[in-house]
């Protein structure tokens, strides 16, 4: 085999591996999209078809009523609204308190900094499930509504994460900025919110987005706290308890439509902020 042939073979092999990876990562999502465009009859066709086809003629036939059905389904719409409220509120709270703490940890000198840092780091690994029964008791004792409970308890994972990532961003900002501001007579707090905060805006967007996604994703607390309040169910819980319009035990056509609808906005966001998200994820983990 000549050198050129070897090179070509290598290239072919490489692209083959690449293609396999792409198919592996994307195919389940494609399958969900394709299934969401099938009728009940098409869904129960055996063998299943890769593209929605008419059971009798075998022609391609696309069915969009699953999408209409989920948008007339009160539970799903409510889930979307609840999830948006909960994830947004918890993210704002986490960013607010987290950026304060991160500024102190990243830029100020004070006694007890090391233990404080370790506490935050340990908290990023805190297993939420261990405090499940304790939080449930607290929430029942305080008679908090399910939505408020979720907003508040989601800080258990969003707050340590935002604090940890933002701390490393603050630390990387040059000290000279602070010093020159101090020379100009600014108090540390003024320096923080007038100079440093705007500088960390990109980091805020990244961590905000990541904690939003985490909150959007959360299932254990949501399932537990909404067990008495059906109205407050978030998207994951709503999808789990989906009962469809078209009679069937598990309306998979509609479930897949719902899956596609809730995934697409996140995918779009992720693609727009791709570079930042990767940076934020690796900052949260690699430096951790």
């Amino acid at each position, binding site marked *: 085999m000549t050198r050129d042939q070897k090179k070509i073979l290598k290239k072919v092999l490489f692209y083959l591996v690449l293609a396999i990876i792409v198919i592996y*990562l994307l195919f389940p999502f494609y399958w969900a999209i394709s299934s969401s465009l099938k009728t009940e009859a098409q869904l129960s066709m055996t063998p299943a078809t890769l593209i929605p086809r008419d059971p009798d003629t075998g022609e391609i036939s696309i069915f969009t009523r699953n999408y209409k059905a989920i948008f007339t389904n009160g539970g799903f719409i409510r889930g979307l609204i609840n999830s948006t409220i909960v994830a947004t509120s918890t993210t704002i709270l986490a960013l607010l308190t987290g950026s304060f703490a991160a500024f102190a940890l990243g830029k100020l000198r004070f006694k007890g900094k090391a233990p404080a840092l370790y506490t935050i780091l340990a908290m990023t690994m805190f297993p939420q499930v*261990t405090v499940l*029964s304790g939080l449930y008791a607290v929430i029942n004792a305080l008679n908090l509504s399910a939505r408020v409970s979720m907003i508040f308890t989601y800080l258990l994972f969003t707050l340590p994460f935002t604090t940890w990532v933002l701390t490393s961003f603050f630390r990387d900002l040059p000290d000279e900025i602070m010093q020159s501001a101090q020379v100009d007579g600014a108090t540390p707090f003024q320096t923080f919110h007038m100079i440093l905060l705007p500088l960390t805006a990109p980091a805020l967007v990244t961590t905000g987005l990541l904690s939003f996604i985490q909150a959007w994703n959360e299932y*254990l607390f949501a399932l537990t706290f909404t067990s008495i309040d059906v109205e407050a169910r978030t998207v994951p819980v709503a999808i789990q308890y989906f009962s469809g319009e078209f009679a069937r035990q598990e309306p998979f056509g509609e479930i897949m439509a719902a899956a596609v609808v809730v*995934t697409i906005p996140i*995918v779009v966001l992720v693609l727009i902020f791709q570079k930042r998200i990767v940076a934020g994820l690796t900052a949260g983990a690699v430096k951790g």
Partner: protein
Amino acid sequence: MAISSSSNLAKEEQKLAFKLLLPAFLILIIIALYPLGQVFYTSFTNREFASSTKTEFVGLDNYQALLSFTVKELDPIIDQETGEQAVDEETGEKQFQRPIRVLPRDPHLYRPAFEFSFFGNKYVVGARTPDFIRSVWNTLVFTFFSVFFETLLGLIVALVVNSEFKGRGAMRAVMLVPWAVITVVSARMWEWMFEPTRAGLFNMLGDRFGLIDGSYSFLSSANLQLPAIIAVDVWKTTPFMALLILAGLQLIPNELYEAAEVDGASKFRQFFNITLPLLKPSLAVALIFRTLDALRVFDVFQVMLSQKRYSMASFNYFQLISARKMGMASAIGVIIFIIIFAFAILYMKSLGVDTE
């Protein structure tokens, strides 16, 4: 004068730092530390949620009920006619006495958790709460295999994406797609692919290639449940792993490879002598993160198997919500906490991760 003003400044800074840290730490105390104390305390009581029974202090009862187990040998059943061990006529398997006969009943009933064979003898593990013992086992098996495959696949994906080729940017975007899918949604998507008729993807494919007869019920048969769940988790988390490893790969200076190339080292040797050792810190962190995450797995188990098979977390959830046993659920919470803590320490020690 100058000294006192600078120490004043330091004091100011100290004060400001405490003020800024206060809200975050207050929140963490309310939602983490206090409930943790509460869980710890409740685990020693028989508290039940929304019930009229009085809460009493029961000491270690909950822990004993969860963790007590016993191993008993099962005697073979001897066929009266032949004097040899009886064999099941249908399956051809050797028969042993039923576990119920050897497990203790007083003062507590032990039920079989699982059976295993060792040197031709058969043993049964009996437990007072077999579901919990099994849930710990399920979680450990799940954690081991999912983290193993995620690391392996993540490494392959990262190595591929790290090389120069057209469409590398698009590839990175593709990598984020499974990560962006909500866990519950991905569980639902795979649940549909695992459909036990040929309407399900895997049965359709298996049937087309003549591997299986087209009616495998992946989520009902005991042997396939864990592999199915692991497959979902691996798909969902491989991208995250790949991203972390990719970040580590990009820290390795290119000159090292160039030097190795000049010295005539093969790609294979380059991988084992340069890439892998230098990747160790990133891999270690990724491993810790994923292991601690996998040990608290809930979503996939709850959605796909519900009460058919538990993880530690889903067992905790069902004790709390369905059985309303708060004391018991709290004890499970404490045990999970200890297990995860032990893993964290073990990992940090053995991999020598620097937290700085």
